[in-house]
């Protein structure tokens, strides 16, 4: 898997690079600012990019902008955005093109490296992964009269894990239930949310997040 890493803090960039190399990834480029990131994304065409939201020269949301710009030119270019904080606004912007291959995580999720690399692979394959914080805020938001309110506690757990990009197998392991039970929950969730069952999980999660 060829990865472009964009992170302005040298130590963190080196840390992520080393972590990824330890997991057998190939680092195509490791850059430290927005313009270099766009160039690397467009010239290297990596399997996935890991992008910090805040990058020089503006130290605002340069990384996010660069990622969105690159995705406009190369639709579906897989990008995993990392940040010290997660914002629903940014999550929406990343999901807006509905092309998949998007991840948005808090930086400290890198600590659990196995899960992090799993997430990276999911994104590289075109999946959608949102930080549990984004998902939690989303579920809390529709607490009153939205369709999500009709979900049971267990169904919410399943939906949360699904939005975090886990496979049915991983969800089953996490919740200590059988895979069959998970897929039953999924069917129930989609029915309650009026989502067509024919779409892929990725699409359906997107629909929920965008609602």
């Amino acid at each position, binding site marked *: 898997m060829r990865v472009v890493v964009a992170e302005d803090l040298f130590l963190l960039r080196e840390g992520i690079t080393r972590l990824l190399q330890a997991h057998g990834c190939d680092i195509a480029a490791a850059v430290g600012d927005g313009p270099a990131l766009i160039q690397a994304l467009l010239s290297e065409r990596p399997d996935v990019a890991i992008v910090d939201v805040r990058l020089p020269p503006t130290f605002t949301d340069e990384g996010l902008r660069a990622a969105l710009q690159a995705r406009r030119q190369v639709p579906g270019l897989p990008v995993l955005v990392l940040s010290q*904080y997660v914002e*629903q606004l940014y999550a*929406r912007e990343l999901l807006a093109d509905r092309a998949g291959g998007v991840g948005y995580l808090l930086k*400290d999720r890198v600590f659990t490296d196995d899960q992090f690399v799993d997430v990276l692979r999911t994104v590289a394959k075109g999946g959608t992964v949102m930080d549990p914080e984004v998902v939690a805020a989303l579920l809390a*938001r*529709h607490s*009153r009269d939205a369709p999500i309110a009709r979900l049971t506690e267990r169904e919410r757990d399943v939906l949360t894990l699904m939005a975090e990009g886990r496979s049915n197998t991983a969800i089953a392991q996490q919740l200590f239930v059988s895979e069959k039970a998970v897929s039953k929950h999924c069917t129930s969730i989609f029915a309650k949310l009026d989502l067509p069952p024919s779409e892929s999980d990725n699409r359906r999660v997107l629909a929920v997040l965008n609602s």
Partner: protein
Amino acid sequence: MAPDSAGQKVGGPGHSRGVPVEDTLPQALSEGRHLPTTSGGDAPYLAGWDHAHCFGHDERTTMDHMNRLLTSLPVPVPRRLRDAGWGVLLVPVALLIVAIFGRGVPLAVTAALAAAATLVVPAVAADLVATGVMFLGLYATFLTGWMILMFFQVIGNDYYTLYSGRGLLAMNAYSDWFITSIGSGVVRDVMTSALIMAFGVWLVPRTIGVHAGLVQRNAALTSRVTRLAETRGTAVDSAAAELRRLERDLHDGAQARLVALGINLRAAEHLFKTNPDAALALVAESRVSSALALAELRALVRGIHPPVLADRGLADAIRALALGSPVPAEADIQLPGDPPAPVESAVYFAVAEVLANAVKHSGAGHVHIRIAYQAGMLRVEVTDDGHGGADPAQGTGLAGVERRMSTFDGIVAVSSPPGGPTIIVIEVPCALSLPKICSS
């Protein structure tokens, strides 16, 4: 907040308690001077202000002028004269006339002093004019009365009867007197007194106007200075309190966790060879601890300056706030540019507080945030469809918002009749800069 000293106004126009303040928000609203809103949401407004609490001063009409006056001291002489009204120049003119007629050195000196006073202290000059003209008027009245007496004395004396031979009822008596006594100084004196009277009648209302204007301006300046001292005091206090809170949070939170982290890692170092399992457990615990420290720091940073505000400015920060709200919130923001960073931050936290209040207390199912800018005024309007009854006097939330905004001469108005809806309007004067980033 001391309600009276802050000019709190309760119950809309006409029910003022404390200092009567012109041009408060409900008044501005009822006179239709508020910003045009995008939808036809005006009707509940005007109805709602019957129950309105409006607190904070609104001196914005005089404020610009005051700012100019305050920032440009010492004021150049022509400017002072313009501020006092050019009418005060009549003081030295009048006194010069007196000096010429009086032909006395002391009078000339007085005139020169008065001229100097006019240029340096227009307010004193205005008083001088009023006093001077009053005395001149008195003098002229006495003079005229005396002249009239003299007139009858003239037509009644021997000199007159001798030449006319007709007595008091003679038809040509007036013209005869006029002709015979011209140049005697009597006519000249009568005309002078009449002129002075006319001048006085013309001048007194004008000097009174000048004086009143100056007094009003002085009062406005004094109240402005008091207000600024007050808001500066609260701003400094709340900044200090905020810093203390940050220090405490850091000390008890992230800092403590980092210390624990260091201790754990040190212990793990020792255990690696003798008891690798225990060491591993300690390292795992350290990892969790570092994540918690990060989460605490993140929350702290949000409280200091929200990252989206830094990244994208006010409009997107408020949109993010609306998106993150547990009660569905809608943001309708029309800003042609960015307010100054301190105003931006104050408005952001004010909206955050108002939104949090709506979520916690109103029982609302929907919140609408509207932000617009017109004529140097940033206007924020947060409406919720909850059960109303929000009282700024109870709880610290809205009072805190008012305090925050008052540092920027902003005002906060609350309309929350029982049964709702609650409408909270924040207005703050500011200039907009060009947008940092054009939204893509």
